């Protein structure tokens, strides 16, 4: 490097995206408690039945064992492999520690799964040094603190960073300089591109397109004819263009919906009908996000814009519209006579908990389970035919079937 600022140039400060991925994560975690298995072919999965390989050590991969392969097939390929049953609680524990390391590097962490994430380190270079130094720093910390190995891909865009980490595995680091991105990509087969799976590979092969370089040399219109809408994206990726930013997943603090009436109202029946609609919208969003709510809040804005809210904490968290509705109606009734008509009504589910990690108090009242089942069925119908295809009967407005939904929900 004989440029004026050789050090600056070799630091690749424009490659600010890191993709960090653990090597054979489940196996690595298992080896921590069974070091005698190191160096042997190890498969994590259930040994019997129709189970599949969840993770395989590199020794097992050498025999052709791959993730998601049926266990029986894996055992035929590698009969000497040691099969270890998965312990998901242990993996999520290590995963939490891993994510903690990532967030000590930068706030811009986008987890993709339990063991991999994108990091945007643009803001961390001043503190921690150029991207390669940060990548090595992460690898060292993961190794020293968690006892497992990580591979790091560094590039100017997310998808190139991911390609880089895949190419550096296991226990490696690969930086693809921005100016060499296109040249590098054009050495790869077409399935290296994001979103190009077996079907697309097949479709492209019929046009004689086998490599990323082939894609880049094909006019966008031709790609669109075969691939439809995604043709343009595939073409862009082949030229190393990926505008997606690293977006940290925001943890929702509450989910809710509110409705401003076309005309202020004092009618109890109308307010409750609106609450039922809001409860269904909120509950569907809770279920979609896999969350349960422990506290239900009611918000009323009166004609003079004065606003009050009341909330109630339940004995066990819920994601059912019926229970949200019953609680909100209880809060509304508890207000007693209202001083004036109501301009806006809102319902909010607060104190959210992850449904997968929350114990569910079962009810003696079979109707509770029935409501739950009914609402899950509602979710499925909505997913297939759209939100307004199935509604509680009391929400159907006679003669105006197309207008049953009102405004879309608002949420924070």
């Amino acid at each position: 490097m004989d440029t004026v600022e050789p050090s600056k140039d070799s630091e690749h400060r424009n490659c600010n995206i890191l993709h960090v991925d653990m090597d054979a994560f489940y196996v690595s975690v298992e080896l921590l408690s069974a070091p005698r298995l190191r160096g042997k072919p190890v498969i994590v999965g259930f040994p019997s039945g129709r189970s599949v390989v969840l993770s395989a050590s590199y020794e097992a991969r050498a025999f052709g064992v791959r993730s998601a392969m049926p266990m029986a097939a894996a055992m035929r390929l590698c009969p000497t492999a040691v099969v270890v049953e998965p312990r998901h609680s242990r993996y999520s524990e290590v995963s939490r520690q891993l994510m903690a390391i990532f967030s000590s590097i930068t706030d811009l962490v986008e987890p993709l799964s339990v063991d991999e994430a994108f990091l945007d380190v643009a803001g961390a270079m001043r503190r921690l040094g150029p991207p390669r130094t940060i990548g090595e720093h992460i690898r060292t910390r993961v190794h020293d603190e968690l006892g497992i190995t990580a591979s790091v891909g560094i590039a100017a865009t997310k998808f190139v960073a991911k390609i880089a980490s895949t190419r550096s595995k296991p226990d490696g680091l690969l930086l693809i300089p921005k100016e060499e991105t296109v040249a590098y990509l054009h050495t790869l087969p077409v399935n290296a591109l994001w979103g190009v799976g077996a079907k697309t590979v097949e479709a492209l092969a019929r046009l004689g397109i086998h490599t990323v370089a082939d894609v880049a040399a094909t006019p966008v219109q031709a790609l669109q004819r075969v691939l439809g809408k995604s043709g343009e994206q595939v073409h862009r990726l082949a030229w190393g263009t990926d505008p997606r930013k690293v977006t940290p997943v925001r943890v929702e603090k509450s989910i809710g919906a509110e409705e401003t009436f076309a005309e202020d109202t004092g009618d109890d029946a109308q307010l409750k009908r609106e609450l039922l609609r809001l409860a269904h919208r909120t509950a569907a969003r809770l279920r979609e996000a896999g969350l349960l709510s422990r506290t239900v809040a009611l918000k009323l804005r009166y004609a003079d814009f004065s606003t009050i809210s009341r909330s109630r904490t339940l004995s066990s968290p819920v994601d059912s519209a019926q229970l949200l509705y019953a609680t909100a109606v209880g809060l509304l009734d508890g207000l007693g006579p209202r001083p004036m008509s109501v301009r806006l009504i809102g319902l909010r589910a607060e104190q959210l908990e992850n449904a997968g990690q929350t114990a569910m108090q079962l009810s003696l009242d079979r109707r509770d389970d029935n409501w739950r089942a009914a609402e899950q069925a509602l979710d499925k119908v909505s997913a297939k035919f759209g939100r307004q295809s199935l509604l509680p009967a009391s929400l159907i407005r006679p003669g105006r079937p197309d207008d049953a939904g009102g405004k879309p929900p608002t949420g924070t």
Partner: protein
Amino acid sequence: MKFRVDRDVLAEAVTWTARSLSPRPPVPVLSGLLIKAEAGTVSLASFDYEISARLEIPAEIAEEGTILVSGRLLADICRSLPSAPVDVVTDGSKVTLSCRSSRFNLATMPENDYPELPALPELSGTISGEAFSKAVSQVIIAASKDDTLPILTGVRMEIEDDLITLLATDRYRLALREVPWKPLTPGMSTSALVKAKTLNEVAKTLGGSGDINIAFSDDSELIGFESGGRRTTSLLVDGDYPKIRSLFPDSTPIHATVETTALVEAVRRVSLVAERNTPVRLAFTDGQLTLDAGTGEDAQASEALEAHLEGDEITVAFNPHYLSEGLSVIETPYVRFSFTSAPKPAMITAQAELNGEDRDDYRYLVMPVRLPS
């Protein structure tokens, strides 16, 4: 009106009558105690349209009469007076209480505005105060505290001849207690839904003095209790109580017997780490019950106890609060758990001996918690 009564007698009478006063009376006169001096006895009464309370105490009456005076203030004054005779004298619209050298002047309220108290319905039968108190305390733990479900805040009393059955549920557990009584009419059959809070007050304040007389009104709107000169009536909770007896399982192939106090203590210890009522797991194996609570991230606790198991091994998780409330009202040395299968409700009953039979006069049914997968 003018009478003299001992301070202790007055204080006790005023305190009891004033406890059913509403803190937010629907009309101002209902914040008052109605005091009537007549024919050698002084009667005190309170009413809030839902609950009425009335009692009589003997007193030296110099002049008969009726007054209405603030119940809360009178109760506070009586409690702090010295232990000596108290003179109560009206003077126009005022009433004066004097006791030794203390004097209090209170305003009276117009007694003519005071509503008429509901009459105590005709007596239906009697029950031992002690038995009734115990039965009530065992059942009200399962009543709902959620006012949005008014029906479930009540305790259902079912009367069939000489047996009263008390039932309560908050949808997560159900308590049933059968207790004998002496009906006035043999073969009577009726039912009433009484607020758990009211029943608890009755049990606490009337249960200690011998028998309690119970009166069901013919129109099924009112219930009355009387004991030792104290009478109280309460409106019944309106509505159809769910049919919950059928929730008890028909057959329970799995039974586990554990020493009661050891289990109560173990649950108390283990649930220290069960924040926000996260569940306590109970694993019954042959000869042993293992309890544990807490999650991987936070604190954990576990404990093992001796247990006698009949049937398959079973692991169930419960809200620790629901579990310990049920265990706390079991008074026998042993407690029996009866299971159908893990996601079905578990039944808790009392048992005197390790290898004996369980008693069926009290049954506490509790729904388990489904653990995250």
